[in-house]
């Protein structure tokens, strides 16, 4: 009897110990960390490609979300679209949406009081909407009226608003606090104009038509972008994308290259 009790205790102890060691063994993180051979302490240099990114952990998770969204939803839709649509038609569709986006380019050139650019953009819009058959073709570029991309984020930057922290948005991807605000304003203006013009007034399925046009717009936008999350295989891709996004915006809104933070 006593032997049995000892045996039971022994088995129980072994089980508990086994569970504990299994826990310890299953996660490498419970092994103690040892300092690496090279660390940041030994550098005597400025850091480079620095972008204000206090929400990096959130952003990295969102970057991952965007990757999965692309992988399982967005890109299959784009591939399907590219498969069934002849290249000629794809280009017409891209031109069509790019032409509608001239409204955003125009309003923002105007907000920045850039008279010449506004007139050019308006000229583009009128030319491509008429000679270009409702925006399907782009004769304006051949006439020297180049596309001048503008948005409200850039307008804010132009008037001195700081970009604020870097922000990775769901679906839209890399952005900043300022540019996210700009995106909302641009969407509001587009929606306002759309409501005013109401091109499908009286159509039988007005909602379905509108939804279809918006979906095609999203698919076309992604179709025009060659970027794929994690495609480079480079482990520091996040920083490369962050840097390029941020710096391109800063330079184009005229904020980089003339402040005090430049090299002495």
């Amino acid at each position, binding site marked *: 009897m006593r032997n049995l009790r000892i045996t039971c205790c022994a088995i129980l102890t072994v089980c508990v110990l086994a569970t504990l060691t299994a826990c310890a063994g299953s*996660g*490498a*993180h419970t092994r103690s*960390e*040892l*300092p*690496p*051979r*090279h*660390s*940041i302490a*030994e*550098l*005597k*240099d*400025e*850091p*480079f490609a620095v972008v204000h990114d206090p929400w*990096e*952990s959130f952003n*990295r998770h969102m970057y*991952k979300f965007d990757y999965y969204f692309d992988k399982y939803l967005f890109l299959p839709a784009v591939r399907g679209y590219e498969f069934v649509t002849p*290249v000629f038609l794809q280009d017409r569709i*891209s031109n069509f949406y790019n032409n509608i986006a001239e409204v955003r380019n125009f309003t923002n050139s105007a907000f920045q009081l850039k008279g010449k*650019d506004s007139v050019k953009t308006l000229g583009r819009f009128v030319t491509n909407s008429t000679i270009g058959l409702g925006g399907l073709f782009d004769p304006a570029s051949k006439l*020297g009226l*180049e596309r*001048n*991309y503008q948005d409200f984020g850039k307008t804010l930057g132009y008037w001195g608003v700081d970009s604020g922290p870097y922000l990775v948005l769901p679906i*839209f*991807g*890399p*952005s900043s606090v300022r540019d996210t605000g700009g995106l909302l304003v641009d969407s509001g203006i587009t929606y306002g104009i759309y409501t005013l013009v109401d091109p499908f007034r009286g159509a039988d399925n007005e909602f379905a038509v509108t939804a279809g046009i918006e979906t095609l717009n999203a698919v076309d*936008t992604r179709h*025009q*972008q*060659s*970027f794929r999350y*994690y495609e*480079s*295989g*480079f*482990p*520091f891709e996040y*920083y*490369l994308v962050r*840097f*390029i*996004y941020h*710096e*391109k915006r*800063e*330079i*184009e809104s*005229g904020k*980089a*290259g*003339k402040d005090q933070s*430049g*090299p002495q």
Partner: protein
Amino acid sequence: MQRSTTAHGLPDTFSPRPRAAERVPAASGRLVLGLLLASLFCAPLKLWAAGEYGYPIPGAYEATILGTPGNLKPELPTKMRVRNLVLDIFPDRERPPIFFYDDGLRCTFAYQKKPAPLVFLIAGTGASDRATVQITMLKALYQAGFHVITLPSPTNANFVISGSRTRIPGDLYQDSEDLYRAMEVAWNKVKGDIEVTSFNLGGYSLGGTEAAFVARLDRERKVFNFKKVLLIDPAVSVFHSAARIEELLGQIPGGSGKLGAFFNRMLYKFSEFYNYGNFVGIDNNFLYAVYQEKIFSPDEAAGLIGLTFRINLAGMIFASDVMTNSGYVVPKNKVLKVGDSLFDYLMVSSHLSFFDYFNEYFFPYYQESHPGVTREQVISYFDLRSIEGYLKSSPQFGVMANDNDFILTAEDRDYLKGIFGERAKFYPRGGHLGNLEYKENLAYMVDFFK
């Protein structure tokens, strides 16, 4: 800006036209520092007489950075029969959480409906299967009726994670074995879908050197019996070519230890130039202006090439360190998670030179499996000269390279010309890979495999 076209056709549509990537910038292809590197120029353009080689950029550094002007590239197909292959080469391999997206070795496969020759293409240092030049070569060959499979470089993190047996890149023999295994797995995956009339092999830069070693392995294993093998801008000695790229960083003030400050200074210069002009965006016109106005000196252009090399190397060092838990730049036993900042690791890794990697990380590992080997011996192994007998006796080889490629010495060039004779095609300019997308070069490559 004036929209003019010069006599030799340098265009207003300079460099590949960026797609409308305003919201999400492109970061793929050659791992360039986007803004800075696409836009350097230091010497005026010359006009080349008719009948002469027409690639227009004379300086080696400028050519390397700028590549080929858009209108001097051939028309390439926009729609292809193409598939992304993800190869599960080591099914039991565990991947740490930060590499969650890496589900196998990635290759790109373009195929014909009719029987055709197949070409494998190996990428250069750090590059993936979808690097810009890889895809350009794939398109040119596809257009000419070939099946093509592009592979990442063994120095690309994807290869380190999913294609390398040891997860420690740098051993030319081991890396070639890994490449050969990857080719076999890729071939097994697609052989039911296509008909192949012959197997061929090409590679650029480090990938060119590796192609020679892979071909040599094939002579023993006889899986593919490669009919033609093209080495494009190859290194003769991997160690010495890497050393020559490292030297480029020596020309920046304070040396390579100050590459961060150098980066920031170059960025400032670039931004400042934008502010002085009346530009509508960082587009072709702006980049052309940077090119014309000689914003960066030759030393600075050299420094930027060295910096790009270091950033590529940083990705390789970090991936290898994480995969082997070596405690080199990441604390040993640390498990990095998706949300963890890796910024310090980028800084530390990019400040490590190729020599640091070789001496502190690679060589001690190599010595474990090759007791008694000396550093000098290892350097001499990773050299085309070490397989000279094989190269001389094999008529299937060809070389395409440039006289002003800075990764080669004059001695290296003479060596390649001596070994391959007429099968070594040397162009007068193009730097390192700068003219690879030029129409004449692509035509030469396609003809070689025909």
